[in-house]
């Protein structure tokens, strides 16, 4: 079965491992993520100012392209794309005047945007359509003995109307990890912001966030954490270098995309090239547990 898929920029660069693993996993589960044509940047962050519709154009243009290609849904992997597309869609379509204005701004497009395309996160597809029971049946290499925490960050859960699960007490990532045979651990900082784009302008804030979030996971017994956001992954993984320079007692912890661990568990294996996109080396723990 084919699912129309919107990748977003970072999945073609720093988070290529996230996408590659997703492709493998979905194939194993009998689905194909079919990349939509002519997509552009989603806008990355939703603009919350009421008066500037120009800032919504990047998101809306993707949804318009999907309509043009007769797609009624876009499946996304990246938390930021998911969040930005959803919020832009609501902001523009719930007000007729905004919808008109945005269409006027995109006058060179072939069609006028209607607002008919749904945006779905892959985790929701796994939970509701494929189901975790089915995933459990397909597991070839259970992640047993792997103690792992699900890190949600902000954009899968807030604003609450677009939360993929309960916005204060989600279990979707933990349930997925349990279905893969891992020991999933709930840790206190799993819903907290990683510092996001402040990683450029306020690096010290992000470093402290990384320190607090990784330590919170470690204190709760996690050996690694998983995420679905390439920016969280950058801040929590790549910024561990600076975090260790700032806090001498800081210990590294691998940060996985959920699709990478799914690939390992479902028999798709681990690709050596994925390790290069990580800072904290993920291979030792996988080898220790006999998973690669």
């Amino acid at each position, binding site marked *: 079965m084919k699912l129309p898929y919107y990748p*977003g*920029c*970072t999945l073609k*660069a*720093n*988070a290529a491992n996230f996408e590659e693993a997703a492709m493998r996993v979905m194939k194993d589960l009998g689905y194909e993520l079919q990349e939509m044509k002519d997509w552009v*940047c989603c*806008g*990355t*962050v939703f*603009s*919350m*100012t*009421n*008066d500037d519709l120009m*800032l919504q154009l990047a998101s809306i243009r993707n949804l318009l392209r999907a309509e043009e290609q007769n797609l009624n849904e876009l499946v996304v992997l*990246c938390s*930021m794309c998911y969040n930005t597309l959803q919020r832009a869609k609501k902001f523009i379509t719930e007000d007729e005047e905004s919808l008109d204005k945005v269409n006027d701004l995109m006058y060179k497009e072939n069609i006028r945007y209607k607002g008919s395309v749904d945006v779905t996160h892959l985790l929701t597809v796994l939970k509701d359509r494929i189901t975790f029971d089915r995933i459990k049946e397909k597991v070839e290499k259970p992640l047993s003995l792997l103690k792992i925490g699900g890190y949600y960050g*902000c954009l899968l859960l*807030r*604003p*609450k109307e677009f939360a993929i699960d309960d*916005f*204060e007490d989600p279990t979707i990532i933990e349930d997925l990890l349990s279905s893969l045979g891992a020991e999933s651990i709930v840790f206190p900082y799993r*819903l*907290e*912001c990683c*510092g*996001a*784009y*402040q*990683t*450029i*302008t*306020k*690096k010290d*804030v992000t470093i402290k*966030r990384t320190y607090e979030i990784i330590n919170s996971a470690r204190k709760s017994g996690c050996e690694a954490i998983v995420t679905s956001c*390439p*920016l969280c992954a*950058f801040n929590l993984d*790549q910024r561990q270098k600076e975090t260790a320079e700032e806090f001498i007692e800081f210990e590294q912890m691998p940060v996985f995309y959920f699709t990478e661990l799914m690939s390992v568990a479902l028999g798709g294996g681990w690709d050596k090239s994925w390790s290069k996109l990580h800072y904290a080396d993920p291979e030792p723990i996988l080898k220790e547990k006999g998973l690669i």
Partner: protein
Amino acid sequence: MSYKMTRDIIKNSLVQKIEELSGQNVFDCYQCGNCSSGCPVVDYMDIMPNQVLRLAQLGATEDILNSETIWICSACLQCSTRCPKGVEVAKVMEALRSINLRKRIGTLDPKKIEIEDLQNLPPIALVGAFRKLTG
């Protein structure tokens, strides 16, 4: 002598601008502090999120526009989801940033990004920062 203080007297044009941009009524806030207690970066702020709302209610807009707080906020929306009065505090922060950015105050200077960072940063970080920190 009795004197009736109304929001029309207190509310200056900048408060009106904040409300217009954010779509929020700053006078809805009753200072419970939920926003500040949930904020993950509050320890870096010079004014706490609930104080930003209080200062806006009092018309002290210059103080909040010049605060470090509005640039520390990363729009994680924890404050907005936890406000019992439904005030989207993150939108107020965004409005305050926008008022500054539209006057070219606080804009991101690409020259200040470290070279090593530029080589390693994912597109998602760069585009996000430029979108949030340009006018």
